[in-house]
């Protein structure tokens, strides 16, 4: 079977209106010569290893959501714990089903939309074909790779064989990114947003805006990559920047928690109910984030023959999402060094505060993620430290200046750090070839026959994701929801606590008065009942 990684189109794809590179220096060169049959030992091993690899990353990434839930439960006050937990938990089913319905299709269909159709190679379609990713595709279910009875006109036998094995795990890997993107917003808005509003926004971001940005800037053939040379290998802006911008858009409409600001505008600290939960949650997020890094790679591909279409011996390597080379070893170096740089900086800035030290570790990794496929580990550490400084300072400045109550610092840790890190990567990686399409159509310079990574492209991309796809749609939708009375809980409910009427006390045995069970215990002790 052909290695149709990430929808890499075969030479036949151009006949069906797909997004196969055309008009470039080496038109359609990708993997035309790299056929591996599933009946071949090497081909089978490669495909089934890839299937297993993504499955493992998905399990690891589940810890990100566990971490977010634990973290938010620790950060919210006792009167809001269960509402906070359930609000974020329900991201899982809702984003999952909607990502099945349309999110997965968007990723493949929107790579050209609209810029490559206007400014790309001749005859580039506005929407690419993605027959294996629509919810009514047979390949979105249990499939052995044989005949496809429904889409025989749009899927080759090789496509079918490949996606029958990979579709579910690859879909799930992206889905876990979707949960993360939506869940980042959750923490910022705790203790006053209605669950209904949050879940509508979560679906819009998790199965809509973020996956559009991934199609544009986090795909081997996305238009931002081909035209702008955009590079964000581990999603500084693709996931974190857009999530931070989205959270800020909602916060601007939602307003601060009651009591967050004194009458003179001075911000008050609202203590967490359980700092230990907050830090354990962040530990879990670190762990899941490591799995996320692995999930951003293609684990094994014959780079010389399949990706570059060159004659000669095979050279197997891991690549990033742009199909440019990296290795698990490299990203492990850089993940740990940037985590360490972030922790060191967070500790110094906050003078050892647990919340900001741990958040610094996370912000450090987020900052360097754009370029962690290529950085030297010490470069990663230093950039991480700078990113944490930017995020920490901006958080408090925005809080004081604009009265934005970001309950967990999500806009800072994800949004500001992600934005900053993407811009830095544009400078640090200036001149590297950004992709392997063969299309020499970069607006801000070319290298190796394709668009070169550059500061302008990365700045524009970071701004587009944070502002255009993050802040703006969420601000508009929050305005609409607010106008309908669906955005914020009533004042009395917020004061009494969001758990008070609906759930009851999260810690009934710590109540100031005896609980029902303690009363029963007394009655039992007296021999009653």
């Amino acid at each position, binding site marked *: 079977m052909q290695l149709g990684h990430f929808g890499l189109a075969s030479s036949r794809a151009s006949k069906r209106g797909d997004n196969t590179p055309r008009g470039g220096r080496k038109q359609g060169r990708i993997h035309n010569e790299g056929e591996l049959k599933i009946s071949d030992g090497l081909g089978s091993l490669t495909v089934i290893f890839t299937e297993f690899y993504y499955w493992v990353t998905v399990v690891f990434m589940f810890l990100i959501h566990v971490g977010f839930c634990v973290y938010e439960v620790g950060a919210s006050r006792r*009167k809001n714990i269960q509402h906070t937990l359930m609000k974020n938990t329900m991201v899982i089913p*809702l984003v999952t089903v909607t990502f099945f319905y349309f999110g997965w299709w968007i990723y493949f269909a929107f790579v050209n939309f609209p810029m490559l159709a206007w400014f790309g190679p001749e005859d580039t379609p506005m929407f690419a074909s993605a027959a294996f990713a629509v919810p009514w595709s047979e390949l*979105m*279910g249990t499939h052995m790779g044989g005949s496809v009875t429904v889409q025989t006109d749009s899927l080759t036998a090789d496509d079918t064989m490949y996606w029958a094995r990979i579709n579910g795990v690859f879909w799930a890997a992206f889905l876990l990114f979707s949960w993360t993107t939506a869940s980042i917003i959750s923490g910022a808005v705790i203790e006053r947003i209605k669950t*209904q509003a949050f*879940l509508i926004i979560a679906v819009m971001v998790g199965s809509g805006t973020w996956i559009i940005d991934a199609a544009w800037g986090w795909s081997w053939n996305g238009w931002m990559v081909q035209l702008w040379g955009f590079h964000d290998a581990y999603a500084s802006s693709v996931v974190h920047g857009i999530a931070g911008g989205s959270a800020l858009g909602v916060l601007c409409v939602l307003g601060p928690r009651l009591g967050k600001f004194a009458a003179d505008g001075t911000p008050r600290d609202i203590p967490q109910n359980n700092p230990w939960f907050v830090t354990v949650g962040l530990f879990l997020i670190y762990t899941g984030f490591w799995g996320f890094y692995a999930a951003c790679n293609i684990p094994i591909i014959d780079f010389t023959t399949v990706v570059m279409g060159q004659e000669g011996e095979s050279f197997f390597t891991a690549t990033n999402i742009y199909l440019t080379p990296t290795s698990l070893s490299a990203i492990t170096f850089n993940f740990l060094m940037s985590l360490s740089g972030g922790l060191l900086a967070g500790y110094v800035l906050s003078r050892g505060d647990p919340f900001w030290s741990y958040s610094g570790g996370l912000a450090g990794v987020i900052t360097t993620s754009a370029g962690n496929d290529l950085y030297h580990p010490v470069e990663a550490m230093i950039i991480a430290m700078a990113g944490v400084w930017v995020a920490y300072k901006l958080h408090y400045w925005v809080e004081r200046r604009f009265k934005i109550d970001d309950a967990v610092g999500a806009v800072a840790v994800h949004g500001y750090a992600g934005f900053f890190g993407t811009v830095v990567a544009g400078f640090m990686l200036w001149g590297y070839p950004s992709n392997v399409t063969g299309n020499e159509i970069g607006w801000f310079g070319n290298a190796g026959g394709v668009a070169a990574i550059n500061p302008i492209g990365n700045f524009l991309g970071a701004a587009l994701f944070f502002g255009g796809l993050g802040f703006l749609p969420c601000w508009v939708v929050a305005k609409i929801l607010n106008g309908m009375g669906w955005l914020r809980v009533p004042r*009395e409910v917020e*004061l009494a606590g969001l*758990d008070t009427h609906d759930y009851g*006390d999260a810690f009934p045995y710590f109540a100031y008065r005896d609980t029902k069970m303690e009363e029963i215990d007394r009655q039992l002790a007296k021999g009653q009942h």
Partner: protein
Amino acid sequence: MSTNVESWGDIASLGAIYPFPGIEWALAIVAVLIWLAWHCWQIRSENAEYDAALRHYREVGLDKALDHRGNHDGMTGGR
């Protein structure tokens, strides 16, 4: 039952092996309706809950609600 599978012997020729292949469009429509219906139910339920809470707090007084720190039964003398 429509399984689309008569034997596991020729696995290379097998395609979709879930029950009732061919009804994927109908399943997709049902799935979307379930999703939208869930949102509708959740919005109505949550808003009704807040309306009930507001009526209750106005009846017993918000001070009492604050005193009871999430203990709703305690507010109504249920304990």
